[in-house]
């Protein structure tokens, strides 16, 4: 079997998300086995801390892995990417959003998901297609993901001539956003752009309704707004736009099947993290085993190969200062009647968008 | 009433009480004198079960104290007025006194007892609402004794009640001790004021490095040459 490392946040503050990646990888290993690819998975917990992530990478490099999938968080992926280059271990980052990771010209570092700037641009583009928004308010969690997404969003709206009227970051675990939302309401923005994980996403929308915040559109720029858990809260989640790396109803091959099998196996729906991790492990597993576990050849194989799978067409390219970055197509979704519907880009769309946001009841 | 039998006690590796025997009969004032570090306070702490002895026994009215927790000892009728007074600093005088009658048997007589100690120490009544911690040394000592009496004890253990008190106050405290003894409370008194304490004691023990070296009637010991030399500096 070919040895492949997997670094992930299994414990620690990032564990809730990390779990999805672990599940995705677990499924990938099973599927590889079905295809006749035997993978010896070397799982390492980085507890969300970069130095621990490095320990893990050092250890894996010493144990002769053909390649490594992970780590989940941007901070860890950043720290590990340089080590990968140093030890010449192919590293495939499945879901970390920070742009810099694939902008350092590192030859051994590959990334499957789209970086942070795509979250903002795809949502704002969608809004511009649907209407003529003039003002936007940002409310986002002050994590790496939140701040870097909003940073690129700010650059993007400047180009598009939209004015920012509020810029509010919050730390996770503050249950009461009413004051902040009232303040935003006072500015009467056309768009409300939010970046949050699921729990905060639900609270933000619940409290927006309480307060009566009524923009033309709510844009959910992050993980939380694309979860089923969020969609289930139909009183508050209907008609919210969001963007994601992946959804089950997209026409990419195997997506629906993956969704069903994942749900059957783990008892909950896969997030895009799970899908990314799954696909990343598939790619790494296939490439590494095809090349007999040789790192150099695996690296070359990743560079030259192209894949079609649950994440659509995948190819690692150099462009716009990126190296080995998959030009992943982000999808814009809208929750309609409790269901996620793809509304942009139009060629993947399953429903027409509802715009502007209907009056709260 | 109280019987200490072959008591041995050590703090960690250091033995401070050696085969100590001591008896207090009902109605007596018994005083224990001894040099610094002789183990007087330690003996009282053992009786109150604040520390656990290694061998020997202490019995009170024929009940073996080894079986009881400190608070149970109080319920049996032994109360200690400890070295350093140990007033509850952030409680008022009256609250301190009320704590004195925390045990069930004392609660019904609480108001009656408060009146009693207030007549005994009129100063406390004046300062009813003052916080214990802000009282002067002498007032705290009065409060400590009064609080002890609130329990309706059968036996009261007094550890250096006159420590740090002005001469007038010392005299007053010894008068009080005799007064409560007359009211039927048995007293076990530990004192550095050897002269005064031997004067009022029915019987006395002399402790040296954790051992009883002498025992007898108070007045007798007062005239004993060894006592005179060792404790009275005469």
């Amino acid at each position: 079997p070919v040895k492949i490392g997997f670094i992930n946040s299994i414990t620690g503050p990032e564990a809730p998300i990390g779990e999805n990646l672990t599940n995705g990888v677990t499924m990938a290993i099973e599927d590889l086995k079905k295809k006749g690819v035997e993978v010896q998975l070397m799982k390492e917990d980085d507890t969300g801390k970069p130095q621990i992530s490095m320990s893990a990478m050092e250890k894996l490099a010493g144990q002769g892995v053909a390649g490594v999938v992970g780590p989940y968080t941007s901070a860890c992926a950043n720290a590990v990417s340089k080590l990968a280059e140093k030890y010449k271990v192919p590293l495939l980052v499945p879901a970390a959003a920070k742009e810099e990771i694939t902008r350092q010209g590192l030859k051994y570092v590959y990334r499957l998901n789209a970086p942070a700037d795509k979250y903002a641009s795809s949502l704002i583009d969608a809004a511009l297609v649907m209407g003529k928004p003039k003002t936007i308010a940002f409310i986002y969690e002050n994590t790496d993901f939140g701040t870097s997404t909003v940073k690129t969003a700010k650059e993007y709206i400047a180009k598009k001539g939209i004015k920012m009227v509020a810029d509010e970051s919050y730390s996770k675990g503050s249950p009461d956003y009413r004051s902040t939302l009232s303040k935003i309401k006072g500015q009467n923005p056309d768009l409300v752009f939010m970046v949050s994980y699921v729990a905060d996403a639900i609270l933000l929308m619940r409290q927006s309704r309480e307060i009566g915040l009524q923009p033309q559109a709510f844009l959910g720029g992050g993980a939380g707004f694309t979860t089923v858990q969020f969609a289930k809260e139909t009183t508050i989640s209907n008609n919210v736009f969001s963007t994601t790396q992946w959804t089950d109803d997209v026409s990419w091959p195997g997506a629906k099947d993956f969704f069903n099998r994942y749900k059957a196996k783990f008892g909950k729906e896969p997030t895009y993290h799970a899908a990314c991790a799954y696909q990343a492990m598939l790619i790494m597993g296939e490439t590494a085993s095809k090349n007999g576990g040789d790192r150099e050849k695996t690296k070359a194989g990743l560079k030259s190969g192209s894949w079609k799978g649950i994440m659509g067409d995948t190819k690692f390219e150099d462009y716009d200062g990126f190296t080995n970055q998959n030009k992943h197509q982000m999808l814009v979704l809208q929750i309609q009647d409790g269901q996620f519907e793809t509304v942009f880009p139009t060629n993947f769309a399953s429903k027409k968008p509802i715009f502007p946001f209907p009056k709260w009841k | 009433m109280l019987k200490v039998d072959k008591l041995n006690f050590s703090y960690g590796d250091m033995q401070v009480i050696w085969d100590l025997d001591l008896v207090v009969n009902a109605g007596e004032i018994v005083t224990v004198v001894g040099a610094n570090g002789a183990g007087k306070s330690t003996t009282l702490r053992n009786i109150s079960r604040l520390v656990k002895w290694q061998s020997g026994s202490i019995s009170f009215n024929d009940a073996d104290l080894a079986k009881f927790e400190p608070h149970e000892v109080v319920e049996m009728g032994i109360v200690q007025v400890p070295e350093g007074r140990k007033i509850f600093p952030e409680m008022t005088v009256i609250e301190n006194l009320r704590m004195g009658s925390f045990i069930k048997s004392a609660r019904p007589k609480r108001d009656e007892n408060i009146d009693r100690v207030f007549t005994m120490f009129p100063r406390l009544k004046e300062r009813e609402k003052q916080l214990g911690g802000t009282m002067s040394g002498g007032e705290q000592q009065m409060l400590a004794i009064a609080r002890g009496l609130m329990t309706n004890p059968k036996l009261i253990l007094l550890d250096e009640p006159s420590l740090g008190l002005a001469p007038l106050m010392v005299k007053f405290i010894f008068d009080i001790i005799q007064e409560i003894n007359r009211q039927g409370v048995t007293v076990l008194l530990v004192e550095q004021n050897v002269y005064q304490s031997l004067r009022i004691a029915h019987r006395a023990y002399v402790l040296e490095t954790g051992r009883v070296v002498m025992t007898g009637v108070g007045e007798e010991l007062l005239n004993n040459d060894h006592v005179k030399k060792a404790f009275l500096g005469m």
Partner: protein
Amino acid sequence: MTPILEIKQVSKFFGGLAANSDVSFHMDEGMIMGLIGPNGAGKTTLFNCITGYYPPSKGDVLFKGQKLNGLQPDRVCKLGMVRTWQKVRPLTKLSVLDNVMVGALCRTNSLKVAREIAHEQLKVVRLDHKADFIAGGLPIGERKKLEVARALATKPELLLLDEVMGGLNPAESDEIIQLILDIKKAGAITQMVIEHDMKAIMRISDRIVVLNSGEKLAEGSPAEIVSNPEVVRAYLGDFHA
């Protein structure tokens, strides 16, 4: 000659309570001053005011002619005035010798010198046989001696002793009395002593100040004090020397 310590109308208020009010007296070099008074008269508070532990609410403290107002205790100690604590405060986990060394380091930066001074002072209080014992385990009497040795190690000119005999029996007190008298005989150190043990105070004091309810009630020689009817009423009761 300027008095070594001069206290001018010192007052200290705690909220509404005047723990000291308008206390004035002075001390000459080499003498022993006794400070007595009923409980809560303000003796310890006065020590605290003199040594900078509390700033006096009013009035001045002059040490060797210099005003101390607002000076922190460590500065006061460096100037040559040190006090002991009514409730002894050994550095519990350090050895007896180390305790005294901490005092000695006030005058030297060398551990070696400090160690010598410490041994010397332990001999003075006759505690040298316990130099290596942990201070926290000493019985009260020896703690009091340690307190004195540590204070002496700072090489003071003025030593303030707060009830160093409290809790000792008469025989033990005698030892301390002898120690105080020895220090006086050696000549370099002036002392102020708070004590409730009248026998002791009579024996050692050159002069006595009596405080009552924060005010100075009387000042005079021991003989004057015991025969002062006000002092007898407020403090002594029927004590007879």
